[in-house]
């Protein structure tokens, strides 16, 4: 019975996100067009210095995969804060459900919603700039991509819990998780070009190994920071760690928010 309720909550929370692909088509198309413009700017930066065409592909691949990171920060991390502002959070809290099911539904719906944007960016980018696409290892590409998504949405679930306690500071935190993270995670270039020490610091964020693993599986190990199986292992560990952290943080933050009376606190 408990299991059944868990999955019903997952489906119920994922449903509006999946349906929004069609029902909020303006957002889906508009958001994709914005990302396409920024992706074009990055490819043109490489073009302006006559970089090898592989770099065009890195910029396109990075832009495509960063859609997931954007979704993790703005639609996972910030979601409970927004729900609090809209007055929905208290309804979630009094409903007889597992809050982890709510986060799982948000994650699965978010993945589906973002995949549409990511695929569109990738296809249009490759066609527009005639960027070379090679898949050297299809199995590892699928496996690394799956592990990266689990780890990224694990981070999102943990953020959602942590952001519950904060007021308007969450905007600043979310901002800091955007451009600075794009820069140090090697989103548009092989991360190993930052030097090993900086690259390893950057790899605290699962996005770094996620992008690097997918890039390696497509373009070969010459572009990678660590051998592919090691990166996959790290991603798997990150995935488990962040989901457990989310579970712990959700309980802890929910308790603290109740004690400090922040569950219904708005406009702060």
């Amino acid at each position, binding site marked *: 019975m408990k299991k059944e309720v868990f999955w019903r909550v997952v489906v119920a929370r994922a449903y509006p996100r999946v349906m929004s692909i069609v029902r909020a088509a303006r957002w889906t198309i508009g958001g994709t067009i914005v990302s396409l413009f920024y992706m074009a700017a990055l490819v043109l930066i490489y073009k302006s210095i006559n970089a090898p065409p592989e770099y065009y592909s890195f910029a396109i691949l990075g832009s495509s995969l960063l859609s997931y990171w954007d979704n993790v920060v703005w639609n996972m991390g910030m979601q409970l804060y927004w729900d609090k502002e809209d007055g929905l959070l208290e309804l979630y809290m009094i409903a007889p459900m597992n809050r982890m099911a709510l986060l799982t539904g948000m994650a699965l719906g978010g993945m589906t919603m973002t995949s549409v944007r990511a695929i569109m960016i990738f296809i249009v980018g490759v066609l527009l700039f005639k960027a070379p696409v090679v898949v050297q290892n299809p199995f590892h590409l699928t496996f690394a991509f799956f592990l990266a998504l689990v780890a990224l949405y694990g981070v999102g679930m943990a953020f959602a819990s942590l952001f519950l306690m904060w007021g*308007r*500071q969450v905007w600043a935190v979310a901002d800091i998780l955007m451009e600075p993270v794009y820069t140090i995670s090697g989103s548009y270039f092989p991360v190993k070009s930052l030097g090993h020490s900086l690259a390893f610091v950057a790899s605290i964020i699962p996005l770094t190994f996620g992008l690097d693993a997918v890039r390696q599986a497509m373009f070969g190990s010459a572009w990678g920071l660590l051998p592919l199986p090691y990166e996959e292992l790290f991603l798997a560990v990150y995935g488990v760690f962040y989901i457990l952290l989310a579970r712990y943080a959700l309980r802890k933050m929910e308790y603290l928010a109740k004690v400090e009376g922040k569950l219904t606190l708005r406009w702060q």
Partner: protein
Amino acid sequence: MSMKYHVKCFYTSMWLGFKITLNWARNPLVYVTYSLVLPIASVFLIIFMYWAVGYYTPERIAHAIVGQAHAYILTDVIATASWIVEDDREHYKTLKYMFITPYSYYLIIIGRIISHMVLALIGVVYAFIIFYAFKLPMSFNPCLYLCSLVLGIIASIALGMTLASIIFVMPRGGRVISRSLQAIFYVFSGAVYPITVLPNWAQRLSFVIPVTYWYSLLRRSILGFDTDPILSTLQEETLMMRFLITAVVFLILSYIMYRIATWRARSSGRLELISSI
């Protein structure tokens, strides 16, 4: 209403803007650090891209740094302008009360944009430090730089106000339009690369965008020359004149659009609309 009230309204809105922008950080140093991190990261993103490829000229990197640091101002102004209207209407639910005060909401938005932008200018200062750190070519012309910066800020505010007007009448699509325009300006103005890398049709489009001239003037005032092969053929006076004309046109257009948009928002009851976005 006398000029004194307009000035008071403007200063009060700037003060409010500072408060809203800063008071989430209990320590002002936290805000300064935060406002430095974003522009630094965006400039270093491009530097790292060049490093990754391994070959580039100092001129090319200087071009990108000038463009990226100043593009941040434009993006900030446009995003703030549209955000203010949405925030007042849907978050704080104060928009309708603003309209029943004797003050001009147009001035209130400008005051709040300026307070936000002053803080965004901290990032520009950092761009100059990078120039020194990387020993990039520099021949600074303070007079031309200040003129270009002030004109650029006026043009940015005009563009921001135009977009804020759209938010009044298009509550759901407004933010997408705002973000799309930021992206269009970034791509077609040649902020971080010469416009010669754009296809011909896009090059023609970049001549209609006022910020193309702004970035060219900024490069000339900081580097002493323009790294863009097409724009470098234009005289400084021609550039300034074109920029001035486009900025004034946008400023007038923004006011007309604001008047029409607020009239339509009042008549269709959209001043207290909640779009749940």
